[in-house]
């Protein structure tokens, strides 16, 4: 298997080459389509490859360049989309039987923005059904495999998007992150993945899972590529009432500015904590040391309420999911299983259409919201959420960014956690607090474990702190490269 970007190079270089007329979008696309045709039988990153519409889009970019029209900042760059992002007239399944044959009547705002930026949509990637899971094993269409080791999971829920970038099937991909669903698979596959500030990227056309947590974000083989993709999709959209009206921060503005004088806090609760492997902690320490050597002021910091993140999340997210997934009732779209009356039709359709994990979360959420339990579960979890936000705010009085592990371990074996939901949920320990706070966070690959599988280091920032977050991420990427060369 080839390494990140499969030797086909960074997205920003491809876009520059296409824009200047040195490279043709259609040639680049054909290289990626060949890679997909040769490799995806084994990996199963894609639910659906959009070869024909991609060729038309690439040809249109080449025509724009020939006619000396601006082809956009991502001209000719193939992008893979998680299959919970709506594409008009193109299957959007959420890897669920209940949406198996659905064709959305509109494009998600991020899809429209990508097209306007000259990007070429190559296909829809596999996910845990309705983005519920941490391994992409909960897909109705079968698991995705980790390109670094086919016996291991790619993480999830955006496992298809992470695997697509890691396998060199596309230089860029979009995912969604509700509790770590971009950062966790990015870390396990050895690529960069970021969850932006809540409200920075429009969610119009993202199939909803937990509305107070969901956010769309980029995958790339490099920090610079992920930044370029985020800068194209961020910004206000009147179609999403949770979209921030302010001008978005630039992710790419200070990538080469270094970290001299920046204050970096290593979060104790999300690094040297129970369940986090020593080899993962060691990588976070190496990254912290490298930042200190580059002139940053690095200290440990405690964010005490973060330890309650996992419990609060597994009350809040299922509660919101149980409400959002009420719409799959066999009436307006998707699967319908006939019944004698409407109640039987609902119950049979939902029983046949949803997989085990989705049913489990709907049940958990319905229970947590039901009469008599609402305040003890959902209400209490929302108050804990406030405590987590307060503790982060206190840390950001002293620090510009925070550092932590992204995942407790490297990629686990396929099948290892499918029978024990709680052990699977623990995969999201380090990523969940950022979703609860609405803050941005990014994972950067930093070496490997003893099993040879990638380890990610997470950079967390306060709301709308994307500029400094990507700045620090770029420095960690440089340090990881230097470290790799030193070992070699």
């Amino acid at each position, binding site marked *: 298997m080839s390494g990140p970007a499969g030797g086909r190079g960074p997205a920003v270089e491809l876009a520059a080459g296409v824009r200047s007329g040195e490279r043709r979008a259609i040639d680049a696309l054909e290289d990626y389509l060949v890679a997909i045709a040769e490799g995806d039988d084994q990996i199963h990153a894609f639910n659906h490859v959009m070869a024909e519409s991609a060729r038309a889009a690439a040809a249109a970019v080449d025509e724009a360049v020939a006619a000396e029209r601006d082809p956009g900042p991502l001209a000719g760059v193939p992008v893979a989309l998680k299959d919970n992002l709506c594409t008009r007239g193109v299957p959007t399944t959420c890897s669920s039987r209940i949406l198996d044959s*659905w064709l959305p009547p509109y494009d998600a705002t991020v899809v429209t923005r990508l097209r306007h930026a000259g990007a070429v949509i190559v296909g829809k990637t596999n996910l845990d059904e309705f983005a519920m899971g941490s391994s992409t094993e909960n897909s109705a269409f079968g698991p995705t495999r980790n390109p670094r080791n086919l016996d291991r999971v790619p993480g999830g829920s955006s496992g298809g998007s992470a695997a697509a970038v890691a396998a060199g099937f596309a230089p860029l991909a979009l995912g969604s992150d509700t509790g770590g669903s971009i950062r966790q698979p990015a870390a396990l596959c050895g690529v960069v993945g970021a969850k932006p500030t809540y409200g920075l990227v429009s969610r119009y056309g993202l199939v909803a899972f937990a509305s107070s947590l969901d956010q769309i974000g980029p995958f790339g083989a490099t920090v610079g590529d992920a930044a370029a993709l985020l800068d194209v999709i961020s910004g206000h959209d009147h179609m999403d009432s949770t979209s921030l*009206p302010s001008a978005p921060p630039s992710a790419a503005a200070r990538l080469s500015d270094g970290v001299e004088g920046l204050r970096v806090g290593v979060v104790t609760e999300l690094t040297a904590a129970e369940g986090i492997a020593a080899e993962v902690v060691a990588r976070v320490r190496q990254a912290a040391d490298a930042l200190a050597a580059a002139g940053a002021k690095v200290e440990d910091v405690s964010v005490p309420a973060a330890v309650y993140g996992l419990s609060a999340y597994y009350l809040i997210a299922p509660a919101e999911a149980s409400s959002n997934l009420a719409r799959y009732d066999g009436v*307006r779209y998707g699967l319908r299983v006939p019944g004698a009356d*409407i109640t039987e039709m609902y*119950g049979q359709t939902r029983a046949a259409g*949803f997989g085990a994990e989705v049913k*489990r979360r709907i049940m958990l959420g319905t229970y947590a919201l039901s009469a008599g339990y609402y305040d003890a579960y959902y209400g209490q979890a929302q108050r804990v959420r406030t405590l987590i936000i307060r503790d982060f705010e206190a840390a950001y009085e002293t620090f510009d960014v925070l550092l932590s592990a992204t995942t407790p371990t490297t990629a686990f074996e396929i099948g290892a956690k499918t029978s024990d939901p709680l052990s699977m949920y623990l995969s999201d320990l380090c990523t969940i607090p950022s979703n609860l706070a609405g803050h941005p966070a990014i994972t950067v690959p930093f070496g490997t474990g003893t099993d040879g599988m990638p380890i990610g280091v997470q950079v967390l920032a306060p709301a709308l702190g994307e500029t400094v977050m990507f700045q620090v991420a770029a420095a960690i990427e440089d340090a990881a490269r230097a470290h790799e060369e030193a070992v070699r």
Partner: protein
Amino acid sequence: MSGMPARISRADVAHVARLARLDLTDDELERFTDQLGAVLEHARDVEALDTEGVPPTAHPLPLRNVLREDVVTPSLDRDEVLAQAPEAEADRFKVPRILGDA
């Protein structure tokens, strides 16, 4: 604020399944009773926290009452939308019987 409820029972799970319009098998009821119990048990650590006087966070944005100008904008194409329905008739979604015979 009330304390955490007692461990979830199979009858609770069957009741919740009806509320959620999920026709579960006996096997699923059995499995979910155990698994939901384990997850809710793990959630007991939030019970120990003193949240007296702490306001809940419903979502992390300071946005309130997001409105736009009251102007007509294009809507989704009706035929395209209805084409995705399992059953449609006379420009409407068609559903099975809602009321009983009696």
